């Protein structure tokens, strides 16, 4: 029966090309626009480390003085050098890493490449195992290198390709700001999205090309990127004692019990510091996990949310439009439907036939919507915002496009088909 209905549907669609085209275009536009924005939203609000985001936490505490104190305020988004180092050395978590972003001038050994700036991450040894960073060659440095301020560096694959033509460069020397570093590792492709571990340097910015121990970078006074929040006497020339928060601190806690214990530890640390007179405010600690931290920072740009809502509104108008057009189309065929009813077709089979027709419109509209979504994403990628390059259609979104197009058109076809089925057979025969 389905084949017959399909045949009828195609005949009917061919009969009134303009109306059919209008319906297809309306559905395609609605689906295309909403899929484009949904894909962007989906990519941007994704989990950067799906396997272990639940185990990664971002401790926050409040080391400020009483100036401008409001009890309801959240603790600062970063930690100071003194607190960061204290928490790092306490080793109360499975892994812990203290870090900040920066930029270093790289002086390639080959004269064919001019010196250039590269974004860098100054961090501690646990960064690599904690975030499960994949290595192509070599490995990260260890805690002893951190303590010694060792001049070691890890490169990303892109930088290694640029400087060493993709060859294993471990053991080679890299000059940065007139200082020689020994390359100990080269990363494989790795780009967590969003750039969760440091939201100060852009939530979706492209990643750092080189990793250096935090102690080394601080000793060498490498240039830093990011934000610094100071209080009291504020920034001095020595960031190690400045009353400023400027570092990101991450820990890995494997079980909820570990997380509770760590929270308790932070509270005790804050109280202890207050007794010592370093902290002045009442202890105020937080321990958001990775996704909680991203939510708190609203990393998905509000423009993207706005666009998604806009696209849904757009889809709604397109669907209302399709309902109207389908109503017109089905009712116009009252005569034909009346004949079929008079010849014995049940209401149910009429309804099925009309829904098949609606589904066919949806299928074609879905293909059109898919093409429009591809076009839309291509346009998004050409935009210069830092997340634009990430906008690609993946398989689930592709399927979602088709399914939603067909479902939407079936929904749009329900009311018109039902109305058309109410046509009494006899009346139509008589008026004809």
């Amino acid at each position, binding site marked *: 029966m389905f084949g017959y209905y399909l045949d009828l549907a195609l005949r009917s669609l061919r009969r009134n090309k303009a109306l059919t085209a209008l319906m297809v275009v309306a559905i395609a536009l609605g689906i295309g626009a909403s899929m484009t924005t949904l894909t962007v939203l989906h990519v941007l609000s994704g989990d950067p480390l799906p396997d272990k985001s639940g185990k990664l936490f971002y401790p926050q505490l409040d080391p400020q003085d009483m100036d401008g104190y409001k009890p309801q305020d959240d603790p600062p988004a970063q930690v100071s050098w003194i607190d960061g180092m204290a928490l790092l050395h306490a080793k109360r978590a499975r892994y812990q890493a203290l870090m900040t972003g920066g930029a270093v*001038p790289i002086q390639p050994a080959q004269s064919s490449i001019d010196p*250039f700036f590269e974004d860098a991450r100054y961090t501690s040894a646990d960064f690599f195992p904690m975030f499960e960073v994949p290595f192509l060659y070599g490995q990260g440095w260890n805690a002893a290198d951190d303590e010694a301020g060792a001049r070691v560096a890890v490169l990303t694959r892109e930088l290694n390709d640029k400087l060493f033509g993709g060859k294993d460069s471990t053991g080679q020397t890299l000059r940065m700001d007139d200082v020689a570093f020994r390359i100990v590792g080269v990363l494989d492709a790795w780009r967590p999205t969003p750039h969760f571990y440091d939201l100060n340097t852009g939530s979706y910015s492209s990643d750092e090309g080189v990793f250096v121990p935090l102690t080394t970078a601080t000793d060498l006074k490498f*240039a830093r990127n990011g934000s610094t929040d100071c209080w009291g006497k504020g920034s001095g*020339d020595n960031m190690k004692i400045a009353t400023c928060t400027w570092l990101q601190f991450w820990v890995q806690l494997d079980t909820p019990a570990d997380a509770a214990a760590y929270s308790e530890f932070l509270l005790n640390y804050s109280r202890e510091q207050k007794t010592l007179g370093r902290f002045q405010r009442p202890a105020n600690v937080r321990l958001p996990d990775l996704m909680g931290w991203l939510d708190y920072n609203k990393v998905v740009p509000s423009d993207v949310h706005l666009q998604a809502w806009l696209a849904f509104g757009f889809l709604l*108008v397109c669907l209302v*439009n399709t309902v109207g*057009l389908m*109503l017109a189309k089905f009712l116009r065929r009252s005569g034909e439907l009346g004949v079929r009813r008079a010849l014995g077709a049940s209401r149910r089979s009429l309804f099925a036939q009309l829904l098949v027709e609606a589904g066919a419109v949806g299928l074609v509209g879905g293909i059109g919507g898919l093409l429009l979504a591809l076009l839309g994403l291509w346009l998004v990628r050409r935009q210069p915002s830092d997340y634009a390059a990430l906008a690609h259609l993946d398989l689930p979104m592709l399927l979602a496009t088709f399914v939603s197009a067909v479902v939407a058109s079936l929904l749009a076809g329900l009311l018109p088909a039902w109305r058309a089925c109410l046509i009494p057979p006899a009346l139509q025969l008589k008026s*004809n």
Partner: protein
Amino acid sequence: MTLHPILAALRKHKAGTVLIALQIALTLAIVCNAVFIIGQRIDRVNRTTGLDEGDLFLVSQQWVGAPNADSTDGVEKLDAMQREDLAALRQLPDVASVAPINSLPLLNSSWTGSVSHKPGAQLGGKGNTRTAYYFTDEQMLSTLGVRLVAGRAFNAGDVQHQGFRDRRDRPVAIITQQLADKLFPKGDAVGKVMYTDGSNAPTTIIGVVARMQIPATGSWGNDFAWYSTLIPTRLDANFARYAVRAKPGRLDAAMRAVAPTLYKVNPMRVLDDDSVKPFSEIRARAYRADVGMAILMGVICLILLCVTAAGIVGLTSFWVGQRHRQIGVRRALGARKIDILRYFQIENLLIAGAGVVIGVLLSLGLNMWLMSHYEMTRIPLPYVLTGVLAMLAIGQAAVFAPARRASNVPPVVATRAA
């Protein structure tokens, strides 16, 4: 012509009528709000910075292996390097003037702090205003093209220098008119003192400039977008920024000359593709997201209006087809073409009228929802009224072709069997 027959006829097409009205309502709600968002973005993008932007460009560079800025000795060496650079750039034939500066409006790299009437006041306290600092020298006004409206400009004797992170007293400053009005509403700012960043040392206001925007373009800077403070100080660090005004029409030539000149002064530095950029590029980069959003909204609005118009054409055509015979009867009974045309136009006006009434309510509701979730302000009534008129006009235009076809139905149809 009475409305009664039209209403009676519409009652027979309840579903279609409701659908068209609903579609007009939804379109009005979305388009009104989208156009309002576009308007807001365009207003932001068109804000004037207060600079003469035409022949202005920025040089950002970093020395490699520069002296350490933590020692007095290092600061002096860095300052000497910076003065050498400035002198070399000022010598260039295509350059009109050069000033060292820590940032520029729209550059999004800012040094913000607070100014106050009272010494030792912390940010966030009373009588305390947020401001963005520009650290520069005596050539700043001519280089940036900022207009002095009161007091005097900096002279060479005002200019100090300091390490990037050091704190020094700031004896004199120039502030913007907006900041002056905020601090001294009586309009007598010149010669008064203020205290910067909670310092106990007074800063005398020696001049007021008409307008100069802060570097930040994000929404966090909206509250103090025009509150800039200019300090006559060169900042010494292993990097430096120079604002350069090219002679009129010589922008490209001046920009090309920068890299070779600076390399000649000192080759131990990094100057890459991004280091020398015209102000127009800084402006474009600062507002690209706003422009992108405005274009996207514009395109969606346009398509939405087309879809709605097409929907009206489609449904009305169907109605005309369905009522072929009735129209013929009316024509045979003496109705003129214009009567038939007017019938469909009025019918559409009724439906669209109901649609826009719902639409106005929907757009206000949508605006309220957006206000509670995003940074939005209340939609002004003229936007909504324009939207209403536009929707009614689109309805009339869309219905015209089918209505004309209806008016061309010959009276003889009435006598034919359908």
